[in-house]
């Protein structure tokens, strides 16, 4: 308590005294010192003493006050109000004019906001679940609408190729494709190594070491290469798209664009979408090759299968279809990632926080949808018998 009061008062030049309260007999209460916000916590506690009303009339003498701010004035006002509500008369004495203004000001602004309606917990939970479901459905519909709008804009742009924005598209290709090569390569290489190593230790038990090559080739070419590339790009680029478009939305840049006759879909979405559609197959191809390289290197080390044997085995083990199946999926995944990234960017509303919220949502949703699409593809290819 002591240090609290000193810390608030040492700063003034004339060394004013810390706030004090003196209770005299007959309901005479003297207040003095610096009633400022720094002492508010202590005064709040000390003032509760007065509430045990023994007197029917209180006289607050404020002539000892050296400094009063809104917090101090509020405390005086609040004490007075609560005493008066208990049918006690309260008189303020020795109020300097400037303190009078402050006390009036505080009294005028004593307006507790109306309480929020409070509902039954279970009911609220049910309502919340219902709201979330409806919200999810509405968003799914909205997303399909966005997809349609993008397709429409795309068809319009394709029929007027001059409207396609080539330079931004190349720029985005560099950002989403070229700059992602190191991380996609590193991850694919390591996964290739892991598959080879784990496969080798399993196959050895059956003396079927050489089939490790089949395992590596089929898993990497058909599934892992493209899936890894898509997941990395979803994390890297879906988030970037959402944050870029979202920040523009917060800045009202999107509105400005519309008023200037620019179509945000055409200017922002199409270059990103096309860049990703073009870059994704290349990235998938790159991931395949590096994954095979990692796998091949590992089989050489643990199983002593030389590179030339590996390649020979590879061409026996897999048809070209295995390779194409991976590559065919790439543009579809690219569309999913670009659309989700851009769509969530447009969903940003108003605040910086909403940019963060939508960004994390776009990453989660795009990865989820990519994996769902992959599952559908594998059923489809199974039925098609390739």
């Amino acid at each position, binding site marked *: 308590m002591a240090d*609290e009061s000193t810390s608030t008062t040492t*700063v003034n030049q004339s060394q004013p005294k810390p706030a004090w309260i003196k209770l005299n007999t007959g309901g005479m209460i003297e207040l003095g010192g610096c009633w*400022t*916000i*720094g002492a*508010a*916590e202590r005064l*709040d506690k000390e003032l509760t003493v007065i509430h045990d009303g023994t007197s029917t009339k209180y006289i607050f003498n404020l002539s000892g006050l050296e400094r009063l*701010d*809104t*917090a101090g004035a*509020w405390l005086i006002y*609040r004490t007075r109000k609560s005493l008066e509500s208990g049918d006690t008369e309260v008189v303020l004495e020795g109020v300097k004019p*400037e303190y009078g*203004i*402050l006390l009036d*000001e*505080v009294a*005028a*602004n*004593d*307006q*507790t*906001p*109306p309480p*929020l309606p409070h509902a039954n917990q279970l009911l609220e939970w049910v309502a919340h679940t219902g709201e979330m479901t409806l919200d999810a459905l509405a968003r799914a519909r909205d997303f399909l609408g966005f997809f349609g709008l993008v397709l429409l804009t795309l068809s319009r742009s394709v029929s007027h190729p001059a409207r396609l924005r080539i330079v931004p598209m190349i720029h985005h290709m560099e950002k989403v494709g070229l700059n992602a090569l190191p991380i996609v390569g590193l991850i694919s290489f390591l996964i290739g190594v892991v598959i080879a190593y784990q496969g080798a230790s399993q196959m050895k038990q059956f003396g079927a070491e050489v089939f490790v090559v089949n395992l590596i080739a089929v898993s990497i070419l058909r599934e892992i290469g493209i899936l890894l590339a898509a997941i990395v790009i979803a994390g890297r680029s879906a988030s970037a798209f959402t944050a870029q478009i979202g920040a523009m939305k917060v800045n009202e840049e999107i509105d400005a664009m519309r008023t200037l006759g620019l179509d945000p879909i055409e200017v922002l979405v199409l270059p990103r979408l096309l860049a990703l559609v073009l870059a994704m197959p290349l990235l998938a191809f790159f991931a395949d090759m590096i994954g095979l390289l990692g796998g091949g290197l590992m089989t050489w080390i643990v199983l002593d299968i030389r590179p030339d044997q590996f390649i020979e085995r590879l061409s026996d083990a897999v048809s070209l279809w295995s390779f194409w199946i991976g590559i065919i999926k790439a543009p579809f995944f690219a569309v999913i990632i670009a659309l989700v990234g851009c769509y969530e960017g447009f969903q940003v*509303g*108003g*605040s*910086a*926080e*909403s940019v963060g919220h939508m960004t994390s949502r776009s990453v989660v949703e795009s990865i989820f949808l990519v994996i769902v699409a992959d599952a559908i593809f594998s059923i489809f290819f199974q039925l098609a018998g390739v």
Partner: protein
Amino acid sequence: MTGDAVIKVEDLHTGFGDHLVHDGLNLEVRKGEVLGVVGGSGTGKSVLLHCIIGLKKPWSGCIEVLGQRVLDLEPPERSALEARWGVLFQDGALFSSLTVAQNIQVPLKEHLNLNQRLMDEIAMIKIGLVGLPPEAGRLYPAELSGGMRKRAGLARALALDPEILFLDEPTSGLDPIGAARFDALIERLRKTLDFTVFMVTHDLDSLNAICDRIAVLADKRVVVIGDMKQMLNERHPWVLEYFHGPRARSAGLLKPGR
């Protein structure tokens, strides 16, 4: 030297890269006054404010606020000094993830140790004081209009009942009625809370209504400082154009016969 200068800036040189913004700027703000700082766009008014509150480090010069040199303060002393001033940034700079009431409580939580009830009550008073409706406390900045954001920013600046209030273009973007109310608000708060105001403004009405003195920033320094009468008699070309232009006339500064 003058004992009652709360802000003292001496021989300030600031810049970005090789772009010089202030070249030997001097300025003194007296205790209890409202100082209006005017100057063309890009003359470095905001940068000056940022220097004084220690957000930007000048190249050279000396800045004293409430008797302490801002530039060489240790973190705890800095924090104590920061509790004694409030700043309203040009666009409010409210924390978008917090409600208005929570925004106002940020400085209370940072500098003091108050119970939640008291903090809620203080936030409520400040919300009323700056003329916002009580429901505004629960709203997020994105849900407010520009004028309301300014008021909410002012409420946050006032949270600790500061001794100095820094305002960066408080009335820009407000309608004339809102701007006049804002002026009246500052004037009334100054009477009750007794603070010094450093106000960057373009608003001739504000300058006329509430500023005790006006400092004109031009040619990378303060070219004139004084009351409105002095401004009207000043011969510096920019000052002449500013205080004798058509807008000055419509603001009623130039009475016929003066």
